């Protein structure tokens, strides 16, 4: 059983560019959450997708947007990249968010460097 897979693993972009990161959830999971982890910090919640809709959003600007497809995979898009967007972007999948005490499974992340 493949766990959560993310692509690409590493990415270098220039300030002002746009980037798309991809995530395939663990088999059977229908909820995808995205996190940003700056160096030396804990992951920060960006947003969560369920049934192809954004259900929860953290304190991130509108430059951060996402999408969930019918097969539950998800994309994270960041527009007008800033140097401060350089971070490890983590995708986590879980079962339907209507269940409490749900364990989240994380992918290996995409390391984004903005130069």
């Amino acid at each position, binding site marked *: 059983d493949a766990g959560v897979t993310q692509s690409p693993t590493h990415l270098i972009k220039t300030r002002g560019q746009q980037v798309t990161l991809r995530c395939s959830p663990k088999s059977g999971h229908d909820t995808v959450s995205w996190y940003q982890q700056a160096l*030396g*910090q804990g*992951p920060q919640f960006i947003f969560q997708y*369920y049934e192809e809709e954004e259900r929860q959003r953290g304190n991130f600007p509108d430059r951060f947007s996402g999408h969930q497809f019918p097969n539950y995979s998800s994309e994270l898009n960041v527009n007008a990249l800033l140097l401060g967007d350089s971070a490890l972007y983590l995708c986590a999948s879980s079962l339907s*968010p209507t269940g409490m*005490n749900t364990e989240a499974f994380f992918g290996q992340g995409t390391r984004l460097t903005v130069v």
Partner: protein
Amino acid sequence: SQQGEEDPQALSIQEGENATMNCSYKTSINNLQWYRQNSGRGLVHLILIRSNEREKHSGRLRVTLDTSKKSSSLLITASRAADTASYFCATDGWNSGYSTLTFGKGTMLLVSP
């Protein structure tokens, strides 16, 4: 924003010793989870403790939760070099019907052979 605060920020021990990490949080929770991260890569789920539980064990891991003090501790017994990693606590606040995790800054554990 960070919900949990782990203490200490860094911990260095010898193989065979026990490692204890603490986590404090601010708001009410449904559960608290501990994760491990090796070399800045993906997070591995270690253990989940519900708000109505006080202690939980999993192999060499022991987690306690004190909701009155809004704190939790993770004990790793008989540490091994392979336990070297960063450890994060994450609180699940069940916001508006959806489960989202709020992480602390983590404790970096170094276990020397």
